[in-house]
Protein backbone atom coordinates (compact mmCIF):
# COMPACT_ATOMS: atom_id res chain seq x y z
CA UNK A 1 0.00 0.00 0.00
CA UNK A 2 1.32 3.40 -0.93
CA UNK A 3 1.42 6.41 1.41
CA UNK A 4 0.01 9.67 0.15
CA UNK A 5 0.55 13.21 1.42
CA UNK A 6 -2.65 15.29 1.53
CA UNK A 7 -1.70 18.93 0.90
CA UNK A 8 -4.80 20.17 2.75
CA UNK A 9 -4.46 18.05 5.92
CA UNK A 10 -0.65 18.24 5.62
CA UNK A 11 -0.45 14.61 6.69
CA UNK A 12 0.89 11.46 5.02
CA UNK A 13 -1.78 8.76 5.20
CA UNK A 14 -2.28 5.24 3.75
CA UNK A 15 -3.79 4.76 0.30
CA UNK A 16 -7.08 3.30 1.61
CA UNK A 17 -8.04 6.78 2.85
CA UNK A 18 -7.91 8.08 -0.73
CA UNK A 19 -9.69 7.57 -4.03
CA UNK A 20 -7.84 7.98 -7.29
CA UNK A 21 -9.71 10.25 -9.69
CA UNK A 22 -7.75 9.71 -12.90
CA UNK A 23 -5.45 11.95 -14.87
CA UNK A 24 -5.11 15.57 -13.72
CA UNK A 25 -5.32 18.82 -15.68
CA UNK A 26 -7.93 17.64 -18.17
CA UNK A 27 -10.01 20.77 -18.49
CA UNK A 28 -13.69 20.70 -19.34
CA UNK A 29 -14.44 22.41 -22.67
CA UNK A 30 -15.06 26.12 -22.28
CA UNK A 31 -17.67 26.11 -25.02
CA UNK A 32 -19.03 22.54 -25.39
CA UNK A 33 -21.37 23.31 -28.30
CA UNK A 34 -18.39 24.11 -30.53
CA UNK A 35 -16.65 20.80 -29.75
CA UNK A 36 -16.53 18.30 -32.61
CA UNK A 37 -16.38 14.51 -32.23
CA UNK A 38 -12.56 14.34 -32.23
CA UNK A 39 -12.33 16.93 -29.47
CA UNK A 40 -14.92 15.04 -27.40
CA UNK A 41 -12.93 11.84 -27.95
CA UNK A 42 -9.84 13.59 -26.63
CA UNK A 43 -11.61 15.02 -23.59
CA UNK A 44 -13.55 11.87 -22.66
CA UNK A 45 -11.31 8.98 -23.63
CA UNK A 46 -7.72 9.77 -24.62
CA UNK A 47 -5.31 9.64 -21.68
CA UNK A 48 -1.53 10.03 -21.64
CA UNK A 49 -0.98 6.74 -19.68
CA UNK A 50 2.78 7.43 -19.44
CA UNK A 51 5.43 5.00 -18.36
CA UNK A 52 7.02 7.39 -15.86
CA UNK A 53 5.87 10.78 -14.55
CA UNK A 54 2.07 10.90 -14.23
CA UNK A 55 -0.06 13.87 -13.15
CA UNK A 56 -3.14 12.54 -11.40
CA UNK A 57 -5.99 13.59 -9.14
CA UNK A 58 -6.65 12.06 -5.75
CA UNK A 59 -9.47 12.68 -3.31
CA UNK A 60 -9.00 12.34 0.45
CA UNK A 61 -12.39 10.63 0.86
CA UNK A 62 -11.82 9.39 4.42
CA UNK A 63 -10.19 12.65 5.52
CA UNK A 64 -10.90 16.20 4.44
CA UNK A 65 -12.81 15.01 1.36
CA UNK A 66 -10.99 17.40 -0.96
CA UNK A 67 -9.48 16.82 -4.39
CA UNK A 68 -5.79 17.51 -4.98
CA UNK A 69 -3.19 16.78 -7.63
CA UNK A 70 -0.13 14.57 -7.44
CA UNK A 71 2.84 13.59 -9.56
CA UNK A 72 3.73 9.91 -9.29
CA UNK A 73 6.17 7.72 -11.21
CA UNK A 74 4.08 4.88 -12.68
CA UNK A 75 7.02 2.45 -12.77
CA UNK A 76 8.13 2.81 -9.13
CA UNK A 77 4.79 4.16 -7.74
CA UNK A 78 6.84 6.80 -5.86
CA UNK A 79 5.21 10.21 -5.37
CA UNK A 80 7.25 13.18 -6.51
CA UNK A 81 4.93 15.73 -4.93
CA UNK A 82 1.31 16.56 -4.20
CA UNK A 83 -0.23 20.02 -4.58
CA UNK A 84 -3.58 21.71 -4.13
CA UNK A 85 -6.26 21.76 -6.82
CA UNK A 86 -6.14 24.96 -8.84
CA UNK A 87 -2.38 25.33 -8.57
CA UNK A 88 -0.55 25.29 -11.92
CA UNK A 89 0.72 22.05 -13.41
CA UNK A 90 4.23 21.26 -12.14
Amino acid at each position, binding site marked *: *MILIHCPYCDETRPEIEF*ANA*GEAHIARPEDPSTFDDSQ*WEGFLFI*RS*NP*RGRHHERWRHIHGCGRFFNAIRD*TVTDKFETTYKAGEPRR
Partner: protein
Amino acid sequence: MTRFNFVNLFAKSLNAHKDWPEQWPDAAPKAAYDAIIVGGGGHGLAAAYYLAKKYGIRNVAVLEKGWIGGGNTGRNTTIIRSNYLYDESAFLYDHAVKLWDGLSKELNYNIMYSKRGVMMLAHNVHDVQSIKRHIHANRLNGVDNEWLSPAEAKAYCPPLSIDPGARHPVLGAALQRRGGTARHDSVAWGYARGAAALGVDIIQNCAVTAINRGADGAVTGVETTRGPIRSKRIGVSAAGNSSVLMQMAGLSFPLESYPLQALVSEPVKPIFPCVVMSNTVHAYMSQSDKGELVIGAGTDQYVSYSQRGALHIIEHTLAAINEIFPIFSRMRMLRTWGGIVDVTPDRSPIIGKTPVPGLYVNCGWGTGGFKATPGAGDLLAHTMAMDEPHRINAAYNLDRFRNGRLIDEAAAAAVAH
Protein backbone atom coordinates in the same frame (compact mmCIF):
# COMPACT_ATOMS: atom_id res chain seq x y z
CA MET B 1 11.14 -29.28 -33.72
CA THR B 2 11.05 -31.52 -30.69
CA ARG B 3 8.23 -34.00 -30.64
CA PHE B 4 7.07 -35.47 -27.39
CA ASN B 5 6.07 -38.94 -28.57
CA PHE B 6 6.61 -42.26 -26.84
CA VAL B 7 9.63 -43.26 -28.93
CA ASN B 8 11.40 -39.97 -28.14
CA LEU B 9 10.53 -40.19 -24.46
CA PHE B 10 11.93 -43.73 -24.27
CA ALA B 11 15.09 -42.89 -26.21
CA LYS B 12 15.82 -39.82 -24.08
CA SER B 13 15.16 -41.75 -20.86
CA LEU B 14 18.20 -43.92 -21.65
CA ASN B 15 20.36 -40.84 -20.95
CA ALA B 16 18.30 -39.70 -17.93
CA HIS B 17 16.56 -37.03 -20.06
CA LYS B 18 19.75 -34.95 -20.21
CA ASP B 19 19.92 -34.29 -23.96
CA TRP B 20 16.50 -32.85 -24.83
CA PRO B 21 17.06 -30.07 -27.41
CA GLU B 22 15.28 -26.73 -27.28
CA GLN B 23 11.66 -26.81 -28.43
CA TRP B 24 12.22 -23.99 -30.89
CA PRO B 25 15.35 -21.99 -31.82
CA ASP B 26 16.15 -18.74 -29.98
CA ALA B 27 16.45 -16.61 -33.12
CA ALA B 28 18.61 -13.53 -33.70
CA PRO B 29 17.01 -10.64 -35.61
CA LYS B 30 17.48 -10.36 -39.39
CA ALA B 31 17.65 -7.02 -41.20
CA ALA B 32 14.12 -7.20 -42.62
CA TYR B 33 10.89 -9.17 -42.43
CA ASP B 34 7.57 -9.26 -44.29
CA ALA B 35 5.81 -8.71 -40.98
CA ILE B 36 6.79 -7.95 -37.39
CA ILE B 37 4.71 -8.76 -34.33
CA VAL B 38 5.67 -6.73 -31.24
CA GLY B 39 4.93 -8.75 -28.12
CA GLY B 40 5.73 -12.43 -27.55
CA GLY B 41 2.78 -13.34 -25.37
CA GLY B 42 0.01 -15.75 -26.31
CA HIS B 43 -1.77 -13.20 -28.51
CA GLY B 44 1.34 -12.20 -30.46
CA LEU B 45 2.59 -15.76 -30.92
CA ALA B 46 -0.87 -16.88 -32.05
CA ALA B 47 -0.94 -14.03 -34.58
CA ALA B 48 2.46 -15.09 -35.94
CA TYR B 49 1.32 -18.73 -36.11
CA TYR B 50 -1.87 -17.91 -38.02
CA LEU B 51 -0.03 -15.49 -40.34
CA ALA B 52 2.26 -18.35 -41.33
CA LYS B 53 -0.34 -21.13 -41.27
CA LYS B 54 -3.46 -19.55 -42.77
CA TYR B 55 -2.09 -16.64 -44.81
CA GLY B 56 1.26 -18.00 -46.00
CA ILE B 57 3.28 -15.08 -44.59
CA ARG B 58 6.21 -16.94 -43.09
CA ASN B 59 8.99 -14.35 -43.07
CA VAL B 60 7.77 -13.03 -39.72
CA ALA B 61 9.52 -11.95 -36.52
CA VAL B 62 8.00 -11.93 -33.04
CA LEU B 63 9.85 -9.39 -30.87
CA GLU B 64 9.63 -9.93 -27.11
CA LYS B 65 11.30 -7.56 -24.65
CA GLY B 66 11.54 -10.23 -21.94
CA TRP B 67 10.99 -13.93 -22.33
CA ILE B 68 8.21 -15.82 -24.11
CA GLY B 69 5.04 -15.94 -22.05
CA GLY B 70 6.58 -13.95 -19.16
CA GLY B 71 4.05 -11.13 -19.26
CA ASN B 72 0.32 -11.42 -18.82
CA THR B 73 0.27 -14.82 -20.56
CA GLY B 74 1.94 -16.29 -17.49
CA ARG B 75 0.13 -14.07 -14.98
CA ASN B 76 -3.57 -14.67 -15.64
CA THR B 77 -6.02 -17.08 -14.01
CA THR B 78 -6.39 -19.20 -17.20
CA ILE B 79 -10.17 -18.94 -17.42
CA ILE B 80 -11.95 -19.50 -20.74
CA ARG B 81 -15.56 -18.49 -21.38
CA SER B 82 -17.68 -16.64 -23.94
CA ASN B 83 -20.90 -15.77 -22.08
CA TYR B 84 -20.81 -12.06 -22.93
CA LEU B 85 -23.96 -9.96 -23.35
CA TYR B 86 -23.53 -8.04 -26.58
CA ASP B 87 -23.63 -9.63 -30.04
CA GLU B 88 -20.18 -8.33 -31.01
CA SER B 89 -18.69 -9.73 -27.81
CA ALA B 90 -20.43 -13.09 -28.10
CA PHE B 91 -19.10 -13.56 -31.65
CA LEU B 92 -15.60 -12.42 -30.67
CA TYR B 93 -15.18 -14.56 -27.56
CA ASP B 94 -17.01 -17.58 -29.00
CA HIS B 95 -14.71 -17.47 -32.03
CA ALA B 96 -11.88 -18.02 -29.53
CA VAL B 97 -13.70 -20.81 -27.66
CA LYS B 98 -14.24 -22.64 -30.96
CA LEU B 99 -10.50 -22.40 -31.66
CA TRP B 100 -9.61 -23.54 -28.11
CA ASP B 101 -11.58 -26.68 -28.79
CA GLY B 102 -9.20 -28.17 -31.34
CA LEU B 103 -6.04 -26.36 -30.29
CA SER B 104 -4.11 -29.21 -28.64
CA LYS B 105 -4.52 -31.23 -31.83
CA GLU B 106 -3.83 -28.29 -34.14
CA LEU B 107 -0.53 -27.51 -32.38
CA ASN B 108 0.27 -31.12 -31.43
CA TYR B 109 0.91 -29.69 -27.98
CA ASN B 110 -1.14 -30.43 -24.89
CA ILE B 111 -2.57 -27.10 -23.78
CA MET B 112 -4.78 -28.88 -21.22
CA TYR B 113 -8.04 -27.18 -22.21
CA SER B 114 -10.45 -28.49 -19.62
CA LYS B 115 -14.15 -27.83 -20.20
CA ARG B 116 -14.96 -27.91 -16.52
CA GLY B 117 -17.68 -25.26 -16.75
CA VAL B 118 -17.82 -21.64 -15.65
CA MET B 119 -20.51 -20.84 -13.09
CA MET B 120 -21.57 -17.26 -12.34
CA LEU B 121 -23.49 -16.77 -9.10
CA ALA B 122 -26.58 -14.64 -8.52
CA HIS B 123 -26.88 -13.18 -5.01
CA ASN B 124 -29.83 -10.80 -5.32
CA VAL B 125 -32.87 -10.07 -7.48
CA HIS B 126 -30.90 -7.79 -9.76
CA ASP B 127 -28.29 -10.51 -10.33
CA VAL B 128 -31.01 -13.07 -11.13
CA GLN B 129 -32.60 -10.79 -13.72
CA SER B 130 -29.30 -9.69 -15.23
CA ILE B 131 -27.89 -13.22 -15.41
CA LYS B 132 -31.08 -14.59 -16.97
CA ARG B 133 -30.91 -11.81 -19.56
CA HIS B 134 -27.32 -12.83 -20.29
CA ILE B 135 -28.39 -16.48 -20.66
CA HIS B 136 -31.14 -15.62 -23.16
CA ALA B 137 -28.86 -13.28 -25.13
CA ASN B 138 -26.13 -15.94 -25.21
CA ARG B 139 -28.49 -18.67 -26.42
CA LEU B 140 -29.82 -16.45 -29.21
CA ASN B 141 -26.19 -16.01 -30.31
CA GLY B 142 -25.48 -19.75 -30.20
CA VAL B 143 -23.42 -19.56 -27.02
CA ASP B 144 -24.29 -22.25 -24.47
CA ASN B 145 -25.40 -21.00 -21.08
CA GLU B 146 -28.01 -22.34 -18.67
CA TRP B 147 -29.73 -21.44 -15.40
CA LEU B 148 -29.11 -23.54 -12.28
CA SER B 149 -31.11 -23.50 -9.04
CA PRO B 150 -29.09 -23.15 -5.81
CA ALA B 151 -29.31 -26.93 -5.23
CA GLU B 152 -28.14 -27.64 -8.80
CA ALA B 153 -25.29 -25.16 -8.34
CA LYS B 154 -24.27 -26.91 -5.10
CA ALA B 155 -24.41 -30.29 -6.86
CA TYR B 156 -22.15 -28.97 -9.63
CA CYS B 157 -19.72 -27.34 -7.17
CA PRO B 158 -19.89 -29.03 -3.73
CA PRO B 159 -17.65 -26.55 -1.80
CA LEU B 160 -20.16 -23.77 -2.52
CA SER B 161 -22.15 -22.52 0.47
CA ILE B 162 -25.84 -22.06 -0.36
CA ASP B 163 -26.82 -21.19 3.20
CA PRO B 164 -29.93 -18.97 2.79
CA GLY B 165 -28.91 -17.03 5.89
CA ALA B 166 -25.61 -15.92 4.37
CA ARG B 167 -24.96 -12.23 3.87
CA HIS B 168 -24.89 -12.84 0.11
CA PRO B 169 -27.08 -15.94 -0.36
CA VAL B 170 -26.84 -17.90 -3.62
CA LEU B 171 -30.18 -17.51 -5.45
CA GLY B 172 -29.06 -19.38 -8.55
CA ALA B 173 -26.29 -19.47 -11.11
CA ALA B 174 -25.52 -19.40 -14.82
CA LEU B 175 -23.41 -22.26 -16.12
CA GLN B 176 -21.45 -22.26 -19.36
CA ARG B 177 -20.38 -25.88 -19.71
CA ARG B 178 -17.92 -25.22 -22.57
CA GLY B 179 -16.08 -22.72 -20.35
CA GLY B 180 -13.14 -23.86 -18.29
CA THR B 181 -9.39 -23.48 -18.03
CA ALA B 182 -6.23 -24.20 -20.04
CA ARG B 183 -2.58 -24.24 -19.09
CA HIS B 184 -1.37 -20.76 -20.05
CA ASP B 185 2.36 -21.56 -20.41
CA SER B 186 1.57 -24.41 -22.79
CA VAL B 187 -0.49 -22.08 -24.95
CA ALA B 188 2.49 -19.73 -25.43
CA TRP B 189 4.94 -22.59 -25.92
CA GLY B 190 2.67 -24.49 -28.31
CA TYR B 191 2.10 -21.44 -30.50
CA ALA B 192 5.82 -20.54 -30.36
CA ARG B 193 6.87 -24.04 -31.42
CA GLY B 194 4.20 -24.17 -34.12
CA ALA B 195 5.12 -20.74 -35.49
CA ALA B 196 8.86 -21.46 -35.43
CA ALA B 197 8.27 -24.71 -37.34
CA LEU B 198 6.63 -22.66 -40.10
CA GLY B 199 9.62 -20.28 -40.32
CA VAL B 200 8.76 -17.54 -37.83
CA ASP B 201 11.72 -16.03 -35.92
CA ILE B 202 10.98 -15.76 -32.20
CA ILE B 203 13.36 -13.15 -30.78
CA GLN B 204 13.57 -12.67 -27.02
CA ASN B 205 15.23 -9.86 -25.00
CA CYS B 206 14.49 -7.51 -27.87
CA ALA B 207 12.60 -4.40 -26.76
CA VAL B 208 11.25 -2.03 -29.41
CA THR B 209 12.51 1.51 -28.74
CA ALA B 210 11.09 3.35 -31.76
CA ILE B 211 8.74 2.82 -34.69
CA ASN B 212 10.12 4.28 -37.93
CA ARG B 213 7.89 5.91 -40.53
CA GLY B 214 8.62 6.97 -44.08
CA ALA B 215 7.85 10.24 -45.88
CA ASP B 216 4.32 8.98 -46.71
CA GLY B 217 3.63 8.27 -43.04
CA ALA B 218 3.63 4.48 -43.44
CA VAL B 219 5.74 2.34 -41.14
CA THR B 220 9.16 1.29 -42.41
CA GLY B 221 10.43 -0.70 -39.44
CA VAL B 222 11.41 -0.58 -35.80
CA GLU B 223 14.45 0.31 -33.71
CA THR B 224 15.17 -2.31 -31.06
CA THR B 225 17.70 -2.96 -28.33
CA ARG B 226 19.19 -5.48 -30.78
CA GLY B 227 19.40 -3.13 -33.74
CA PRO B 228 17.04 -1.80 -36.43
CA ILE B 229 14.65 -4.15 -38.25
CA ARG B 230 12.83 -3.19 -41.45
CA SER B 231 9.24 -4.17 -42.20
CA LYS B 232 6.22 -2.60 -43.90
CA ARG B 233 3.76 -4.45 -41.68
CA ILE B 234 3.90 -4.15 -37.90
CA GLY B 235 1.37 -5.65 -35.52
CA VAL B 236 1.46 -4.47 -31.90
CA SER B 237 0.18 -6.94 -29.34
CA ALA B 238 1.81 -5.62 -26.18
CA ALA B 239 -0.94 -5.53 -23.52
CA GLY B 240 -0.08 -3.00 -20.78
CA ASN B 241 2.62 -1.34 -22.88
CA SER B 242 0.45 -0.84 -25.99
CA SER B 243 -0.08 2.87 -25.45
CA VAL B 244 3.67 3.38 -24.93
CA LEU B 245 4.33 1.71 -28.32
CA MET B 246 1.55 3.65 -30.00
CA GLN B 247 3.15 6.89 -28.74
CA MET B 248 6.28 5.85 -30.66
CA ALA B 249 4.20 6.07 -33.84
CA GLY B 250 2.71 9.39 -32.76
CA LEU B 251 -0.69 7.97 -31.78
CA SER B 252 -2.61 8.66 -28.58
CA PHE B 253 -4.81 5.76 -27.54
CA PRO B 254 -7.84 5.52 -25.22
CA LEU B 255 -6.00 3.19 -22.85
CA GLU B 256 -4.96 3.21 -19.22
CA SER B 257 -2.71 0.56 -17.68
CA TYR B 258 -3.45 -0.87 -14.24
CA PRO B 259 -1.89 -3.62 -12.11
CA LEU B 260 -4.17 -6.68 -11.82
CA GLN B 261 -3.34 -9.26 -9.17
CA ALA B 262 -3.92 -12.97 -8.80
CA LEU B 263 -2.87 -15.48 -6.17
CA VAL B 264 -2.73 -19.20 -5.50
CA SER B 265 -3.14 -21.22 -2.34
CA GLU B 266 -1.02 -24.09 -1.15
CA PRO B 267 -1.77 -27.18 -3.28
CA VAL B 268 -4.49 -29.50 -2.01
CA LYS B 269 -6.21 -32.63 -3.34
CA PRO B 270 -8.93 -32.12 -5.98
CA ILE B 271 -11.85 -30.38 -4.28
CA PHE B 272 -12.99 -27.69 -6.68
CA PRO B 273 -14.37 -29.11 -9.94
CA CYS B 274 -15.21 -25.98 -11.93
CA VAL B 275 -14.70 -22.22 -12.20
CA VAL B 276 -16.95 -20.08 -10.00
CA MET B 277 -17.34 -16.33 -10.41
CA SER B 278 -19.37 -13.91 -8.38
CA ASN B 279 -19.67 -10.37 -9.66
CA THR B 280 -21.52 -9.13 -6.59
CA VAL B 281 -18.92 -10.09 -3.99
CA HIS B 282 -16.24 -9.77 -6.69
CA ALA B 283 -14.44 -13.09 -6.42
CA TYR B 284 -13.58 -15.87 -8.77
CA MET B 285 -11.74 -19.11 -8.29
CA SER B 286 -10.75 -22.42 -9.84
CA GLN B 287 -8.32 -25.21 -8.96
CA SER B 288 -5.25 -25.89 -11.06
CA ASP B 289 -4.13 -29.38 -12.02
CA LYS B 290 -1.29 -28.93 -9.50
CA GLY B 291 -3.93 -28.55 -6.78
CA GLU B 292 -3.57 -24.84 -6.03
CA LEU B 293 -6.71 -22.76 -5.72
CA VAL B 294 -6.29 -20.03 -8.34
CA ILE B 295 -7.93 -16.78 -7.25
CA GLY B 296 -8.28 -13.61 -9.25
CA ALA B 297 -8.21 -10.27 -7.47
CA GLY B 298 -9.09 -6.80 -8.73
CA THR B 299 -7.09 -3.99 -10.25
CA ASP B 300 -5.47 -1.23 -8.26
CA GLN B 301 -7.19 2.15 -8.53
CA TYR B 302 -4.26 4.00 -10.08
CA VAL B 303 -2.33 3.79 -13.37
CA SER B 304 0.89 1.83 -12.91
CA TYR B 305 3.45 -0.26 -14.76
CA SER B 306 4.96 -1.73 -11.58
CA GLN B 307 3.71 -5.35 -12.09
CA ARG B 308 2.75 -5.56 -8.43
CA GLY B 309 -0.34 -4.48 -6.56
CA ALA B 310 -1.43 -3.44 -3.11
CA LEU B 311 -2.06 -5.93 -0.30
CA HIS B 312 -5.45 -4.46 0.60
CA ILE B 313 -6.74 -5.56 -2.81
CA ILE B 314 -5.80 -9.16 -1.95
CA GLU B 315 -7.42 -8.84 1.49
CA HIS B 316 -10.64 -7.65 -0.11
CA THR B 317 -10.63 -10.59 -2.54
CA LEU B 318 -9.98 -13.18 0.14
CA ALA B 319 -12.78 -11.74 2.27
CA ALA B 320 -15.10 -12.28 -0.69
CA ILE B 321 -13.83 -15.84 -1.25
CA ASN B 322 -14.44 -16.66 2.43
CA GLU B 323 -17.94 -15.28 2.13
CA ILE B 324 -19.03 -17.79 -0.52
CA PHE B 325 -16.61 -20.62 0.38
CA PRO B 326 -16.32 -20.67 4.18
CA ILE B 327 -14.70 -24.11 3.78
CA PHE B 328 -11.50 -22.37 2.58
CA SER B 329 -11.21 -19.90 5.46
CA ARG B 330 -8.11 -21.58 6.90
CA MET B 331 -6.36 -22.19 3.56
CA ARG B 332 -2.91 -20.61 3.34
CA MET B 333 -1.98 -18.55 0.32
CA LEU B 334 1.27 -19.41 -1.39
CA ARG B 335 2.06 -16.77 -4.02
CA THR B 336 0.63 -13.49 -5.30
CA TRP B 337 1.67 -11.56 -8.37
CA GLY B 338 0.56 -8.76 -10.65
CA GLY B 339 0.37 -8.07 -14.36
CA ILE B 340 -0.26 -4.80 -16.18
CA VAL B 341 -3.56 -4.70 -18.05
CA ASP B 342 -4.52 -2.07 -20.63
CA VAL B 343 -8.10 -0.99 -20.08
CA THR B 344 -10.31 0.80 -22.63
CA PRO B 345 -13.19 3.09 -21.62
CA ASP B 346 -15.80 0.48 -22.69
CA ARG B 347 -13.82 -2.58 -21.47
CA SER B 348 -13.78 -4.07 -24.98
CA PRO B 349 -10.58 -4.57 -26.97
CA ILE B 350 -9.28 -2.69 -30.00
CA ILE B 351 -8.27 -5.02 -32.84
CA GLY B 352 -7.60 -3.61 -36.26
CA LYS B 353 -5.91 -0.96 -38.33
CA THR B 354 -4.58 2.31 -36.97
CA PRO B 355 -4.38 5.75 -38.66
CA VAL B 356 -0.74 4.89 -39.53
CA PRO B 357 -0.52 2.76 -42.71
CA GLY B 358 1.07 -0.62 -42.06
CA LEU B 359 0.59 -0.41 -38.29
CA TYR B 360 -1.95 -2.81 -36.77
CA VAL B 361 -2.97 -3.24 -33.17
CA ASN B 362 -4.46 -5.80 -30.82
CA CYS B 363 -4.86 -4.18 -27.42
CA GLY B 364 -7.27 -3.08 -24.73
CA TRP B 365 -8.12 -6.58 -23.51
CA GLY B 366 -8.06 -5.24 -19.98
CA THR B 367 -8.59 -7.86 -17.33
CA GLY B 368 -9.81 -10.66 -19.62
CA GLY B 369 -7.46 -11.31 -22.51
CA PHE B 370 -6.32 -14.87 -21.91
CA LYS B 371 -9.63 -16.46 -22.92
CA ALA B 372 -9.40 -14.79 -26.31
CA THR B 373 -5.81 -15.82 -27.13
CA PRO B 374 -6.46 -17.97 -30.24
CA GLY B 375 -9.24 -15.72 -31.54
CA ALA B 376 -7.30 -12.48 -31.04
CA GLY B 377 -4.24 -13.95 -32.77
CA ASP B 378 -6.34 -15.20 -35.67
CA LEU B 379 -8.11 -11.85 -36.12
CA LEU B 380 -4.89 -9.80 -35.90
CA ALA B 381 -3.31 -12.13 -38.49
CA HIS B 382 -6.32 -11.73 -40.78
CA THR B 383 -6.27 -7.94 -40.41
CA MET B 384 -2.53 -7.78 -41.14
CA ALA B 385 -2.65 -10.17 -44.09
CA MET B 386 -5.72 -8.64 -45.78
CA ASP B 387 -5.15 -5.03 -44.66
CA GLU B 388 -8.76 -5.00 -43.53
CA PRO B 389 -10.52 -6.38 -40.45
CA HIS B 390 -12.40 -9.66 -40.35
CA ARG B 391 -16.15 -9.17 -39.89
CA ILE B 392 -15.79 -10.40 -36.29
CA ASN B 393 -13.37 -7.62 -35.34
CA ALA B 394 -14.74 -4.91 -37.64
CA ALA B 395 -16.67 -3.33 -34.75
CA TYR B 396 -13.58 -3.35 -32.51
CA ASN B 397 -12.03 -0.37 -34.27
CA LEU B 398 -10.49 2.78 -32.89
CA ASP B 399 -13.17 4.98 -34.48
CA ARG B 400 -15.79 3.86 -31.98
CA PHE B 401 -14.44 6.24 -29.37
CA ARG B 402 -15.10 9.10 -31.77
CA ASN B 403 -18.43 8.05 -33.31
CA GLY B 404 -19.85 6.65 -30.08
CA ARG B 405 -20.51 3.05 -31.22
CA LEU B 406 -19.02 1.64 -28.01
CA ILE B 407 -19.28 -2.06 -27.14
CA ASP B 408 -20.04 -1.34 -23.54
CA GLU B 409 -19.20 -4.54 -21.70
CA ALA B 410 -18.17 -2.31 -18.76
CA ALA B 411 -21.84 -1.54 -18.22
CA ALA B 412 -23.00 -5.06 -19.15
CA ALA B 413 -20.72 -6.90 -16.75
CA ALA B 414 -20.36 -4.11 -14.16
CA VAL B 415 -17.18 -5.81 -13.02
CA ALA B 416 -13.72 -6.69 -14.21
CA HIS B 417 -14.03 -9.52 -16.73
